[in-house]
C-alpha cells in the first residue's frame, strides 16, 4: 500500500538556522498537511495545502514558517530561523479525493540546540 514518506527522520540544527523538512505524499493525493507534536504533548495542526495554496493555517504557523510543493511529488515545510521551542516531531499527511482519511508520514524529529 502506498505510504507517505518524510526525510530526514531526525534533524539537529542550531538556533537561528533555516531548516527544510521534506515529505513525499501519496502520489494521487490532492490535500496536504503539516502537524507538529512537542515532546509529551498532543499533535497540533499547522497548515493545510490544496491546489498550490494554503487553505488553512493555525496560529502556530507564523511568518517563520512556509510551505511549498516545488514539483509534482514533494511537499516541504521551511522554518526560516529556528527557535528552541520549534523542537518537536513534525508529521506530514496527505488525503485523496474520495476517502475522508489523512495518511500520516512517520515524522521528522527536529531538535534545535
Amino acid at each position: 500500500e502506498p505510504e507517505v514518506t518524510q526525510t530526514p527522520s531526525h534533524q539537529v540544527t542550531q538556533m537561528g538556522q533555516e531548516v527544510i523538512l521534506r515529505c513525499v505524499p501519496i502520489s494521487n493525493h490532492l490535500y496536504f498537511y503539516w502537524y507538529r507534536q512537542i515532546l509529551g504533548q498532543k499533535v497540533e495542526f499547522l497548515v493545510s495545502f490544496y491546489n498550490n495554496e494554503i487553505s488553512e493555517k493555525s496560529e502556530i504557523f507564523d511568518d517563520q514558517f512556509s510551505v511549498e510543493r516545488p514539483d509534482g511529488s514533494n511537499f516541504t515545510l521551511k522554518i526560516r530561523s529556528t527557535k528552541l521551542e520549534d523542537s518537536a516531531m513534525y508529521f506530514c499527511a496527505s488525503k485523496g479525493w474520495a476517502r475522508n482519511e489523512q495518511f500520516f508520514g512517520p515524522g521528522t524529529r527536529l531538535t534545535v540546540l
Partner: protein
Amino acid sequence: AQSVTQLDSHVSVSEGTPVLLRCNYSSSYSPSLFWYVQHPNKGLQLLLKYTSAATLVKGINGFEAEFKKSETSFHLTKPSAHMSDAAEYFCVVSVSAGKSTFGDGTTLTVKP
C-alpha cells in the same frame, strides 16, 4: 468548528482485563473519527476509523469503537489488554478535507 475531549489522561488496567478509552467530540458537520496509537518515540499508527458507514468499527489488534451520535462519543474498547497495548492513544476528528483535530491523548498502562 470541531473539538475532541479525551476524558481520561491516564488509564491503568491489568493484563487480560478490558480496556475502555473514552472520547467525546464536537463538530458542526458530519465528522469522521479515528483512533491512533503512538508508542514511545514512534509515529502514529491508525487503529480504526469511522467515516459514516457502520457505527461499530473494528480495528487492528482486537480494538473496536462505537460511534454514538446521540452521545457525541467514540469510545475505544478491547476485551482483553495485552502488555504490548501500553502506549499513548489519540482520538481524532476531521471533516471532509479540513484539518484533523487531535485529543490530548490517553496514556494506557498495562500491569502484569
